[in-house]
């Protein structure tokens, strides 16, 4: 049945993530997660797909982005990429099949055919300071890690606990790990940061937002 779909989940995802008991477990984990609803999904894509994504993303042009909040390199939104493989991945992420899958595991209705997606490259000293990601349309923030960094290398994603709706301290940290997918619900409490990278190993991700219905 799935083989007739233009973007079958089985082409891209680790088959373990398609088992019904796994989907049920993810639904529960997402809602229970602290400090705010999120999921960390290791080995999410098929390994060869993740490797190919890294290989193709490295061919894209990255631009230095710098403000009070961040310093890193980023590609343009991949909706305009000429790279055939990245185009396919972009189409897969916004496909009815994948958006329905994400809507199910997050118990959150997200829009098909609509997302932001860009490649991001952090080098030594690069960082993203605390913010909540809130902007019109942004429903779910996501990132695919395409390289791995050790704890001593910095570059962790830090999620903030809040008190009286104000972020206080980082209560959960995730080190970037190759082929790990992280998602969280954008809300007034979704304060997070990327800690300064203190290594010459590049921290490369594909990240963006799914939009609301």
């Amino acid at each position, binding site marked *: 049945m799935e083989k007739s779909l233009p973007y079958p989940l089985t082409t891209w995802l680790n088959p373990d993530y398609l088992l019904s008991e796994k989907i049920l477990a993810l639904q529960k984990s997402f809602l229970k997660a602290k400090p705010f609803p999120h999921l960390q999904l290791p080995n999410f894509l098929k390994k060869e797909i993740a490797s190919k994504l890294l290989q193709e993303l490295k061919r894209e042009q990255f631009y230095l982005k710098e403000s009070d909040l961040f310093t890193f390199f980023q590609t343009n939104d991949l909706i305009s990429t000429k790279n055939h493989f990245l185009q396919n991945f972009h189409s897969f992420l916004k496909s009815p099949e994948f958006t329905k899958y994400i809507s199910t595991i997050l118990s959150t209705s997200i829009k098909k055919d609509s997302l932001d997606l860009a490649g991001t490259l952090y080098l030594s000293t690069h*960082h993203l300071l605390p913010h909540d990601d809130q902007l019109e349309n942004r429903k779910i923030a996501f990132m695919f890690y395409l390289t791995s960094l050790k704890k001593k290398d910095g570059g962790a994603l830090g999620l903030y606990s809040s008190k009286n709706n104000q972020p206080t301290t980082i209560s959960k940290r995730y080190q970037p790990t190759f082929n790990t997918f992280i998602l969280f619900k954008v809300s007034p409490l979704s304060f997070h*940061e990327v800690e300064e990278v203190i290594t010459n190993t590049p921290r490369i991700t594909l990240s963006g937002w799914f939009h609301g219905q």
Partner: protein
Amino acid sequence: MVNNSSKNNLSKKKNQSFLRSSPIINRNYLPDQTINKIKYSFRDNNDFPSISLINFFDKKIYFFIQKELSHLKLIHQKNPPLYSYSRSHLTKYLNSFFNREDLRNFLAKISERNVKKVDLSYSQFSHKDYMLLHDLVSKEEKDSTRYDLIFDLTPNWNKEWGGTIFYVDRLGNHHPILSYPNTLTLIERKIIKRKNNDFSSEDSAKLTYYLKYINQHAKNKKRLLIMGRIITSK
């Protein structure tokens, strides 16, 4: 025998007489002709009315300020979406120093306003510290124009370490503030009252500011800044 408290009083008296006998501002800045040039430079850029004066205080005075600051007890404060840095109020003694009539008169000549008060505090920024872009000012500020004052005491700073203060104008241009020890910077920005009673500098001369995150290369070095505002009337 002299107890500690008497020693402190003696040292302060000595300092006070030393301050009375010397001009505190670098003599090169004091001639009327120079002040006129400074005034002209201050008004020269409509989007960013500002002036930085290097070697502002007389050398002896600068050492005196550094020494006084070394007695302050700084407290680190962090509000993640806004700032992370260490801060202390100035001592009464330093506060009255920065409110001396000669200093207020000098600032009045540049700003062309009557300087009623200089309101400052001392800040240190080290590795991992920052101040994000913000434009809110206190509700007590009824004046429509704000004058920010930044006095830099940071020796041997490399801008590659972060820590630069940037003012962002209405066109999105980023104006870095010179980081050099013994440098005084004065910035003018307009303030309008929002409907919800908050104040914000967002009219035609909108200017907001931030201090860039300080990265690992700063190691144990710190940005040392006395910052605040001058309270003026027309």
